[in-house]
């Protein structure tokens, strides 16, 4: 009946939530547990997992992979969540205005989203990050920039259908002002799909960040899962764990987010699911 019960009644959603929570805790605790940071060299390079003090082995430079994995979670979550927040905020703003008012704003928004569909998104992202100089901020800006049109389209669609619903018409005949109609009548009803798409978007943003770092376009001062894989490309043939473990970390994180998104979708739209 309740939202939480509907969410947790899906086993995948429950697992996703627990796993995601664990990753958040690891990310927050990393500096406390491993004060020396991920770049410290602790021993011989390419030691297999299970070597003394190295449960996840060591990498090409002899750094503790486990510390790297823990710190990598910080970068992934930080970029994933902030890029999504920015993209969702911008997307809601433009989508709401375009969907509610239509007309010129709507035309303009549609042209802009078309532009983003026509330009290869990842190339654009690379260009932006490369030209802004690779950093955490540029990754967030770049990913938000290629992601917001998606939110805007969804929000616009929702507003377009909701604005002709009779309860919105009723609010207008009561004499309610547009801003208030948007905020109190339409937005609460448009939130479920926005929440769902945002939860999925965090996952996609994490994937995009890892891809950037993999290509060497990540923040050079931070170790992220993507850059761990990118740095270990040459060692892949001899030391499987150097590429496999960070990859699995990305996968688990994104999978947990997507499972949660699916659960949210069901919990927020009890009729639509199945």
């Amino acid at each position: 009946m309740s939202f939480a019960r509907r969410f947790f009644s899906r086993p995948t959603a429950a697992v996703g939530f627990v796993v995601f929570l664990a990753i958040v805790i690891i990310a927050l605790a990393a500096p406390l547990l491993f004060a020396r940071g991920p770049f410290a060299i602790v021993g011989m390079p390419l030691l297999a997992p299970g070597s003394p003090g190295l449960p996840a082995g060591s990498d090409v430079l002899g750094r503790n992979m486990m510390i790297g994995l823990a710190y990598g979670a910080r970068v992934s979550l930080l970029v994933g969540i902030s890029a999504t927040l920015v993209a969702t905020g911008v997307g809601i703003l433009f989508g709401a205005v375009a969907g509610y008012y239509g007309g010129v704003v709507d035309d303009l928004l549609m042209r802009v989203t078309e532009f983003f569909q026509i330009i290869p998104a990842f190339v654009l992202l690379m260009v932006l990050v490369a030209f802004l100089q690779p950093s955490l901020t540029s990754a967030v800006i770049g990913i938000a920039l290629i992601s917001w049109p998606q939110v805007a389209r969804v929000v616009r669609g929702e507003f377009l259908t909701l604005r002709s619903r009779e309860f919105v018409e009723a609010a207008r005949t009561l004499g309610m002002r547009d801003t208030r109609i948007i905020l109190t009548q339409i937005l609460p009803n448009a939130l479920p799909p926005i929440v769902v798409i945002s939860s999925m978007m965090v996952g996609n943003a994490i994937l995009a960040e890892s891809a950037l770092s993999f290509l060497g376009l990540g923040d050079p001062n931070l170790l992220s899962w993507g850059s761990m894989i990118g740095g270990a490309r040459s060692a892949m043939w001899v030391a499987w764990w150097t590429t496999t473990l960070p990859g699995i970390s990305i996968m688990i994180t994104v999978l947990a987010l997507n499972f949660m998104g699916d659960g949210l979708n069901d919990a927020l739209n009890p009729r639509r699911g199945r």
Partner: protein
Amino acid sequence: MGLVSIQNLTVALPPGADRPKAVDDVSLEVGRNQIVCIVGESGSGKSLTAHAIMGLLPRGVTAAGGQILFDGVDLLKEPPGAMRKRRGRDIAMIFQDPMAALNPVVAIGRQVTEQIRAHRAISEAEALKQAGALLGEMGLKDIESLLKSYPHQLSGGQRQRVMIAMALSLSPQLLIADEPTTALDVTTQAQILKLIKRIQAEREMSVLFITHDFGVVADMADSVAVMRHGRVLESGTVAEVLGNPSHSYTRALIAAVPRGESQLPPPPDVRPLVQVNKLTKRFRRGGMFAPGKVNTAVDNVSLTLSRGETLGIVGESGSGKSTLARCIIRLLDPDAGEVLLDGADIAHMKPGELGPLRRRIQMVFQDPFSSLNPRQTIGDILTIGPRIYGEDPKEARARAADILRLVGLNPETMNRLPHEFSGGQRQRIGLARALMLKPDVLIADEPVSALDVTVQAQVLQLLDDVRQQMNLAMLFITHDMRVAAQVCHRVMVMRHGKIVETGPTRDIFARPSSDYTKALLAAIPGRQVR
């Protein structure tokens, strides 16, 4: 012995449904060469009974007991393969909404031949010939191009004729018609009813006709069964059931059917409160690269409305009646003409000037399920209007309780959400929301068309009471002449955006001057009910 004999049929709903059984111990006979109507309101189990005969119950819904004997064979025991062969060949079915019931991406011809060829080994060309002949028999014209058309290119009536042609293509012994005219306009409904009656007589087949409308029953049925909550309350010949109903529910249902006779006296002749002059509204379609088409939805319409009076605007779909209402209340901006409220033209006011005047005209909407914000409590829905105009929230809440009582609801329901209420209750809440602003004018846009007959009667009564008590000027939009006759002092008939004729309800019903109004009146089903 009849063609179909249903004995003690029970249909079980899946666990977790609002009730365990949709059909409960139903027995029913359909004789050869006769039309049997099952009449009931939503949730009565009438439609599932019909689907059980076809062996087409929805997933999870099962026939849990009883028998359906068709020509002596129990259909519930037929293996799926044999049942499939019977469908279309022995028993055919048509549905409520012919637009939804036809595959949108397959040409009409193929949809008919598909059925023929599923049961008979003949060539596509041969089947197409038969299909063409059938469509002709249904009164359709221009068969050649019709066979190549797609459903969206036809009118509602044409589509239902195609459905009927398809159903009859293998000369079944039984035709099941599940509310086949509910989605159609009145005049089209009359034609389709006539067609079904004609075909039945010509082919001497049996028809099981599902409906909610006693008017239709009176026109169509040889015998009738009344269902409620999954049970048959009474059955018999039409004369018996309509003339001498034994069950109180049947009596209530019959009494609730609007009579189609005006009961209200002509309006008092007073200075009009609302005056609409030469109002016109056009819609443009098409974008940057497509030449725009202009559709004049409301064409030069004038009307007056006084306090204490109800003016009915009657028209079929596409007549512009709802657009007219939305222009008057300024949900749409009219292109030309004026709307005078107490002499002030509100049609062209800027939002700032309009603001304070808005509360004087309020509206009750058609769809009880979309007219209330699903995420606000009833209390919020009712008080949000007054709060916009600066009323103290506490005071507004107290008034909301009074108004809930006025519309027949318990004030303690204020903390509930809309989904906890039935359709009729929601319409009451919608009315209460409008009344909270103490309006002078109330526009009711098809306020009862989504409701069951008995609920319809209650809501209509309530609207009329409220109008009298609060001395409202009411504009009542409807497609249903019978409903209009019940609550309106005057009636205005619209078609294609224009006024066809207007006058006191009694006069229009007694002496319609235009052919269109005459046709509308003639199309009212069951004029002979009492």
